[in-house]
């Protein structure tokens, strides 16, 4: 990186600089005031806990459980959201009949249902999958409905001028037109599904990163808790980046313009 690059895009340098400054300040405050580990561990202690968790394969096992719960829930939510959203957006009667229920369920805090689901489905992974799916479902549903309804009139006129059938209009125009919205919904949903899985594990579980946080909490291993939080943040960022990469490939046209010229 040259000096000119830095001048044009100073944030490239500032972002890691803020991180370093923050960690250094944190470390020095903890050391200067001799804060005990069970109140606020120093970044170095968190790094040690993180290293230990990776070397004894503790994280791999629990992260795998949480991720599979979240992703299975996400896929169920995505499929159900796209199908139900499409049916609601395409058929006026279905919309009028179901929409009050959709709104009612949406205003209900879904995680409040978690204890009930654990009672019904047990401490295993299935209750977590259902909670993750429930939390991730609504962002998909709402975005699918909005996406399918925001087709500009000229495109529909064009299809009508060709005497297109309803299915042709849906397949050639309405559905692809909705994809940017659908992906916005999926991007939120994938992060929400991890939230759902963690909450499910809090309520009652044997394994998973949420369970691990509770274990560390009971043992007052605050450094361990921070380490798991860091891991969760990293997994969340990874999922988001994967979604972005898929999105860039699938809805390539919704990108900034690259004009060739007149």
């Amino acid at each position, binding site marked *: 990186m040259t000096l000119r690059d830095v001048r044009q895009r100073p944030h490239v340098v500032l972002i890691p600089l803020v991180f370093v400054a923050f960690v250094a300040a944190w470390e020095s405050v903890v050391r200067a005031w001799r804060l005990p580990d069970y109140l606020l561990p120093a970044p170095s202690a968190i790094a040690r806990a993180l290293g230990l968790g990776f070397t004894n394969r503790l994280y791999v096992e629990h992260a795998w459980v949480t991720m599979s719960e979240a992703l299975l829930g996400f896929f169920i939510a995505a499929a159900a959201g796209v199908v139900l959203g499409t049916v609601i957006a395409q058929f006026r009667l279905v919309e009028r009949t179901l929409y009050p229920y959709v709104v009612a369920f949406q205003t209900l805090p879904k995680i409040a249902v978690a204890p009930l689901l654990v009672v019904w489905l047990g401490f295993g992974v299935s209750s977590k999958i259902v909670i993750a799916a429930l939390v991730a479902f609504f962002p998909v549903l709402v975005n699918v409905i909005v996406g399918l309804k925001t087709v500009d009139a000229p*495109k529909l006129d064009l299809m*009508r001028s060709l005497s297109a059938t309803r299915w042709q209009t849906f397949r050639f*125009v309405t559905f*692809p037109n909705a994809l940017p919205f659908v992906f916005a919904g999926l991007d939120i949903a994938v992060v929400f599904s991890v939230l759902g899985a963690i909450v499910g594990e809090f309520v009652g579980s044997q394994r998973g990163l949420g369970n691990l946080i509770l274990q560390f909490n009971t043992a007052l291993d605050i450094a361990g808790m921070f380490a798991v939080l860091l891991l969760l943040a990293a997994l969340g960022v990874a999922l988001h980046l994967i979604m972005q990469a898929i999105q860039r490939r699938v809805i390539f*046209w919704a*990108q900034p313009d690259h004009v060739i010229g*007149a």
Partner: protein
Amino acid sequence: MPASRVLPYYERPAIRGGQEDALLITAAGLNQTYVSQDRSVVPALADVSLAVAPGEFVTIVGPSGCGKTTLLRILGGLLRPSGGSVHLLGRAVTGPSRNVGIVFQDPVLLPWRTVLDNVLLPVQVLGLDRQTYRARALDLLGLVGLEGFEGKYPHELSGGMRQRVSLARALVHDPALLLMDEPFGALDAMTREAMNLELQRIWRESGKTVAFITHSIAEAVFLGDRVVVMSPRPGRIADVVTVELPRPRDLDLMASDAFGVYARKIRQALGPRGMLE
């Protein structure tokens, strides 16, 4: 290409003979009203009658709100008139027809399709054979000056190029009538003049019948065999001016006296204010 195809409509024997069945599209006594927000009935078109001969280039000029677009939507079967009738190739128009190709104000391309796939959209929707029409689509892209662009996406093209794609799409299923709704209105003046020249060439080469809406008097005179002048509130035909300028017309013609005479005539037909918005 037979010579008769490029003859101005008024020089063609069938028209001179005045045979009704030789007309491509006729509109008789069209009325259109709509109900405004305060529940009052607003007339948009009043007693509009029009007949277009095969191969003719008719331009329809008028200020905003004179019902030009309403008229075009009725001709294209996208809108049912409140009164009157439209006949295309001798048949009453009750809905969209595959004998009509429409070029809208905006190109209305599908951004997720390549240029070629955009041009082939009518082929796909009408259930025609893709392989057969692929060659035709490529020919048309050449005709509109976009050879080699078939694999590009709309966001990679300029506004003028997009409207050319839209023109190729309107022609791909070989409709008898081309309806154009201010297709070059959004382009800059220079691109617009270039597009007018190209359109004249494409029209002559394809032999299509064209109804072309514009709010530019110069564009109307330059392109039209006949200029239908419309006045607003309610939209009705104020005058029909036959333009007997030789073809092919070039841009220099726009500075000629003959051109000026036609332009003045149309401006006068538009009423005392004589100004287009």
